[in-house]
């Protein structure tokens, strides 16, 4: 039987809930399990309710899971918020008996531990109740104590021997106490079977690492939740390999610095979230018309306006695809998993360099802030591409925006003799001279810029992932961070006998038309699940396909669970089999 458990820790924000979850996560990863975390946290810095969820398994994890096997609730609020998610056939609640006494629910196993008094009486520090709770978990579920001890040494080593020892003592106090708990559950971890070396990375960290691998050496950004940790990661790591971070006065400046650096010959990147991305749209237009390779990451959060800064949504797709005035072609990609954040951002850099245009990369809070075990990245998987530079003979009478068969012109770099030109925001001719009154040239130049899409369609087709039945009765087209959840739902639905398959594009604009067409043909229904209100990807697809897509929209600031997708598959299947009528799209 495979190991597959979901743990959740809940309590007052700022009291160590997150660090408890993080240590549990690292311990499980080092014990040899695949892990998949899920974080929601309050927008407040101190106080409010915080929780941290980690799923651990022997097999590749595709989603955060649905039912909780273990809930560690430090206070009554955490109990009330999460008890309905605990499995009713043997799920465990661990609670602090010093804090509250929960009512007994059928099918849930209750382990009360006086966490606060153990911490205050045996250790003398109330805050160590978190560590006491980890000792309890370690003993109950057979997670090696040694792994926790090592983690505590690493985490508190800088604070001195005394602090480390206090925490190790707290761990043992918890483990000792747990010995006298009469066991009723069957949850057992031990050591996992994962062999090869893995990293534990969040989506944002994986993305930042991928940017470094792409040759990005300059990051410009402005702090914004939930993208800030990309800047923090790079501020720490880039100097180790000869790069650096500039914190700018706003997001307009951040993307300005990126364009300036790229123009001057060095790959650069910025990352932001919706509000900052809105500010950047004018510069995206400039990058389009001046044909400057650039990578802009949007770690989406709930909008509009300030919205819900710490919650997830897939609501910026329209802005990513259409933001800006005029005819403004850019590439829009969506990252799908923690591992894909690494390779995806490398592809984004490559596309921007190859086609000399901005690439918008969509992530979201759910993906950016969750951690997962990922294999050590294979740098040979994605090559590092540089832009097309002028040959010596092209520098005589250099034409920066020369019309070419593939619509890609040679791009000189300042310092190159004979390569001088003006990167121009005005409509310009092939040389780069302003051509604001040349009507024919405007059409020809617009055709050139859109003409790059021909090749990009092909790349988009190659980057499509298919799961389940490739010619299903019921198809699912998703995007971005929902990939794993959809894949897991497809597996569940297939095991129940449904003819179902999923297509997941990585490039959302321009779209992988051929692959989408092939997939849609032959289906009886296609569901498009999106974490937004109106179905932004469905709307884009309706422009290209005369097909009555069924939308599944979730708009509460939380990602899908596999069960929600399975429920929709079953509902649609029942309808498909009872009638040949197609479904009206619910908005």
């Amino acid at each position: 039987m495979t190991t597959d458990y979901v743990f959740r820790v809940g309590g007052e924000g700022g009291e160590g809930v997150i660090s408890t979850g993080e240590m549990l996560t690292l311990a499980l990863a080092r014990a040899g399990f695949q892990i998949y975390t899920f974080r929601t946290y309050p927008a407040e810095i101190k106080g409010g309710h915080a929780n941290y969820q980690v799923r651990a398994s022997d097999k590749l994890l595709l989603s955060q899971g649905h039912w909780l096997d273990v809930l560690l609730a430090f206070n009554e609020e955490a109990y009330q918020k999460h008890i309905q998610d605990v499995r009713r056939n043997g799920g465990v609640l661990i609670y602090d008996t010093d804090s509250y006494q929960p009512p007994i629910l059928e099918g849930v196993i209750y382990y009360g531990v006086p966490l606060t008094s153990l911490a205050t009486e045996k250790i003398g520090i109330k805050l160590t109740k978190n560590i006491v709770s980890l000792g309890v978990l370690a003993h109950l579920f057979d997670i090696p104590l040694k792994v926790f001890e090592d983690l505590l040494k690493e985490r508190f080593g800088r604070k001195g021997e005394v602090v480390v020892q206090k925490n190790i003592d707290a761990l043992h106090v918890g483990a000792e106490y747990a010995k006298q708990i009469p066991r009723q559950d069957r949850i057992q971890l031990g050591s996992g079977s994962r062999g090869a070396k893995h990293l534990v990375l969040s989506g944002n960290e994986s993305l930042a690492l991928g940017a470094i691998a792409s040759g990005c050496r300059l990051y410009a950004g402005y702090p914004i939740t939930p993208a800030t940790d990309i800047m923090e990661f790079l501020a720490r790591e880039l100097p180790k390999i000869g790069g650096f971070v500039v914190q700018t006065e706003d997001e307009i400046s951040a993307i300005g610095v990126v364009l300036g650096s790229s123009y001057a010959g060095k790959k650069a990147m910025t990352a932001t979230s919706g509000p900052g991305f809105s500010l950047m749209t004018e510069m995206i237009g400039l990058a389009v018309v001046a044909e400057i390779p650039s990578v802009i990451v949007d770690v989406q959060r709930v909008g509009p306006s300030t919205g819900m800064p710490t919650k997830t949504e897939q609501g910026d797709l329209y802005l990513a695809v259409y933001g800006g005035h005029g005819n403004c072609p850019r590439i829009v990609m969506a990252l799908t998993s923690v591992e894909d954040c690494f390779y995806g951002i490398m592809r984004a850099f490559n596309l921007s360099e190859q086609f000399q245009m901005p690439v918008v990369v969509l992530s979201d809070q759910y993906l950016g802030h969750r951690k997962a075990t990922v294999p050590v990245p294979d740098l040979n998987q994605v090559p590092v591409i540089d832009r097309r530079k002028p040959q010596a003979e092209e520098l005589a009478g250099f034409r920066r925006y020369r019309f070419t068969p593939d619509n890609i012109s040679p791009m000189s770099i300042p310092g190159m003799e004979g390569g001088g030109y003006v990167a121009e925001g005005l409509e310009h001719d092939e040389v780069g001279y302003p051509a604001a009154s040349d009507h024919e040239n405007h059409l020809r130049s617009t055709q050139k810029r859109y003409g790059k899409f021909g090749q990009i369609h092909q790349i988009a087709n190659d980057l499509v992932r298919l799961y389940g039945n490739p010619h299903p009765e019921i198809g699912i087209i998703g995007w971005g961070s929902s990939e794993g959840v959809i894949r897991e739902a497809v597996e569940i639905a297939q095991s129940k006998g449904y003819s179902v398959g999923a297509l997941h594009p990585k490039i959302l604009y321009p779209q992988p038309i051929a692959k989408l067409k092939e997939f849609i043909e032959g289906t009886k229904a296609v569901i498009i699940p999106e974490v937004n209100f109106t179905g932004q990807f469905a709307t884009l697809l309706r422009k290209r396909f005369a097909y009555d897509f069924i939308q599944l929209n979730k708009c509460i600031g939380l990602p899908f669970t596999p069960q929600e997708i399975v429920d929709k598959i079953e509902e649609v299947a029942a309808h498909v089999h009872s009638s040949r009528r197609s479904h009206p799209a619910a908005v």
Partner: protein
Amino acid sequence: MAQVKEYIGKVKPDWCPGCGDFGVLNALQRALADLDIAPHNVLVVSGIGCSSNLPGFINAYGFHGLHGRSLPVASGAKLGNHGLTVIATGGDGDGYGIGVGHFIHTCRRNIDMTYIVMDNQIYGLTTGQASPTTEKDIRTKSTPEGTIELALNPIALALTAGATYVARGFSGENLHLAQLMRGAIEHKGFALVDVFSPCVTYNKHNTYPWFRERVYKLEEERHDPSDFRLAMEKAYEWGARIPIGLFYKVERPTYEDEDSVLRGGIPLAKQPLERTDLAAVMEDFI
């Protein structure tokens, strides 16, 4: 020494006859020639406005971007290749209106580059509305009863924000202006050269004769440009006499000097694009 003509671009300026910006362009070309900086190592970045068309008229690399956003692009280019001579140009609306946030923070950041503002105290390209430096009570197309706001003081603002070379020139004093620009380009750090560059079409108040009657050179009055308080005092002198010249100059480590990677390092753009060894970074995540 290079010849001025080497810096003359192929495109003829489209400014109105008599526009102050001609003098600014000439002075910049002269300063670059005096300094003998090869055209392909010069980058001129601008925003939008009459004066922002300047990069097209000079033989160098250029970037004609967005209204108010020349400084972020110029900063990025300098940080991406700090071997380049980077000069940002634009007007008062571009730099002191829509782009004033970037202006303040670029002063503070002290990246080694030069910012030349052709200040004509009017929006010229949009045919004559009040700008941030339009004097109070002046009637323009957007202020038929006279401007209500006080004029912004770019010299005082630059001083307050931490610019390390703060000068003002007059388009009608070309050699003096070229000297100020040369000093600005040579200066290690962020240098502002605000230039009275009269708009002969839409500003009938701040005209060449108006300036000629008032301007005097700080250098001729033994101004001490190392004295911050004095520079501030001079920044507020506006009336019968208006100072031009170098208000303030101080040596302060530049952003490039302070950054551990850029300090003494070869420019990022000159580093080969090769496979990165991620081992040092990854060890934190195992």
